[in-house]
């Protein structure tokens, strides 16, 4: 059986981990198969979780989150016959498939939408744990905002410096209020479970928010502008489908491959004007065509625009 390990935010974070869960469920529905899953409770459990699943014969073992990188590096050689799939991190081992996303591209698109939807000209970004990966989100977002409105002001906050930043809705909510008081009227939350608090408060306070990873539009219908979907579900689904034959190496899920994008559905139909949609679609096409290149923060740990 395949197995899936969720990171600290937990399976039902309505975001990153829940997307992975969705992929697994899709696989279950289609194949009728069963899989094992595990939620991390603490940093120190990662190694045990990995080796225990490997020990139990699970194959492949999919894990969500960069934080598994270090332990996977040491566990993978112990179980050469087991295939591991890690999302959001590159681990160079012969039996590991590393899946990474071009979050900067998706963030660019929702950034454009944010700039267009904003009435105040100020938009916000709330990140989870302050790590290069999340800065990558932020950088793409900023580029998109500036592309749509070069005069826009962007307020940025990170929730924290430890993994608990992924699961701190109270802090998310307070940061949202702070950004609103600074004039932000569209806020993009790239913060896992913390984002629940961001979206909630944005809805309460009557401004727009942008979800992340999963399609979060339904959480507050008519209040969530869109979601930067990162098809973690597809990554999990495909890995499960491939089973033990999953191919080691690095897989980049980009806009062209449908790995990232923005969500449109009934819940946000009224928020997105024809014009806005057309502009974003056009930008997407240009990115795919290579006419627009969105800078990847992690390529040089800097962002060209602030």
């Amino acid at each position, binding site marked *: 059986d395949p197995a899936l390990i969720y990171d600290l935010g937990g399976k039902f974070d309505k975001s990153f981990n829940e997307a992975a869960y969705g992929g697994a469920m899709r696989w279950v529905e289609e194949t009728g198969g069963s899989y094992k899953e595990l939620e991390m409770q603490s940093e120190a459990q990662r190694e045990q979780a990995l*080796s225990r699943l490997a020990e139990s014969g699970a194959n492949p073992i999919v894990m969500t989150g960069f934080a598994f990188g270090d332990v996977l590096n040491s566990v993978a050689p112990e179980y050469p016959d087991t295939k591991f799939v890690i999302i959001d991190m590159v681990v160079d081992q012969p039996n590991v498939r590393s899946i990474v996303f071009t979050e900067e591209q998706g963030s660019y698109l929702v950034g454009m939408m944010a700039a267009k939807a904003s009435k105040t000209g100020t938009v916000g970004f709330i990140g989870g744990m302050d790590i290069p990966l999340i800065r990558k989100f932020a950088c793409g977002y900023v580029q998109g905002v500036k592309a749509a409105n070069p005069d826009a002001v962007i307020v940025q906050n990170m929730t924290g410096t*430890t993994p608990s930043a992924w699961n701190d809705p109270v802090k998310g909510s307070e940061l949202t209020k702070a950004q609103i008081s600074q004039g932000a009227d569209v806020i993009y939350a790239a913060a896992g479970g913390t984002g629940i608090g961001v979206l909630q408060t944005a809805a309460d306070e009557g401004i727009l928010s942008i979800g992340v990873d999963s399609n979060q539009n339904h959480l507050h219908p008519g209040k969530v502008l869109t979601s930067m979907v990162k098809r973690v579900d597809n990554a999990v689904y495909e890995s499960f489908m491939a089973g033990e034959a999953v191919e080691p190496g690095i897989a980049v899920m980009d806009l062209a491959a449908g790995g990232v994008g923005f969500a449109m559905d009934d819940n946000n139909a009224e928020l997105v004007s024809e014009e806005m949609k057309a502009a974003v679609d056009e930008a997407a096409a240009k990115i795919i065509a290579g006419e627009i290149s969105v800078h990847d923060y992690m390529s040089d740990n800097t962002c060209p625009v602030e």
Partner: protein
Amino acid sequence: MDKLPAWADIVLVPLISLLLAAVISAIVILAIGQDPWEAVRVMVQGALGSSYGWGYTLYYTTSFIFTGLAVTVAYHASQFNIGGEGQAQIGGLGVALVCLAVPWPHWTLALPAAMVGAALFGAAWAAIPAYLQAKRGSHIVITTIMFNYIASALIVYLLVEVLRPAGQMDPATARFPAGAALPTFKDIPGLNLIFDKKVPANVTFFIAIAACFAVWILLWRTRLGYQIRAYGKSERAAIYAGISPVKVIMIAMLISGGLAGMMAINNVMGEAERLLQNSAEGAGFIGIAVALMGRNHPLGVFLAALLFGFLYQGGAEMGLWTSIPIELRLLLQGLVILFTGALDNMVRMMLVPFFRNRAKEAA
């Protein structure tokens, strides 16, 4: 209150407490629509059913022995050390600093140095609450709780700002040099016949057993232990005998903190091989339950640590293979502490009529 025979107090009361905790847990499992028997089966199978399971059970046992002994030593000086968690985390800091400071050529050299680091740091973290209790009468329970929180904030700060290697995303130190890696059961000749897979249980287990023995010697064979126990039983009598309360509190708490810190040898050096946030994972608190169950005797602590190692590993397996959440082990742990530590008089009262009848029959 009627008295129970000593053996009943030492053996029967903890057993009944454990039984009560188990029964209530079973009721909870039933109430959430799961099968308690299945839970027990999975726990036993997962923790004791394979050498692999034992490798984990004994790993946890090792940690709990240290924290249990820490509570025990403090208890004999009538100090309730709730700070094991913080002391263990700071002990981990000591281990990490020692392991990272020197490119250790071999674990036999790294281990003693790391032990010293762990014990010193753990003891240092216990020193302030101890001093405040001894000199200024600040309640040690409250101060040690506060120090747990201060410890975790300090560790977060150090991991994020100071010790994290450049380019690493998660807050942790670098990996320790290979020369500091402790042999696990798989690497120990003889034991590797049983443990053919990599398990986290490592040489620290034997150090823990040695620590049990050392604590026993300390408490019941040395002058210092004599003074600690005398002070713990009666402060007034201790003063009559010329035993200095300040000295006893300080020394007992330093030893206690040192033992809690030593736990880090097991998890930080032996298993994770780098310092992580929240490395103690609640073992400091489990030490309270272990000491209570073990009646504050090293042998009892050893047995209780084994039991809790089983519960901890079994609970993890249960969380993995059944739909009962892993949190059941927190519940079980809470119940054991409640019955052995707080409702012990109730348990005793439940037993008294039984012994009274027997006494009558005998008469």
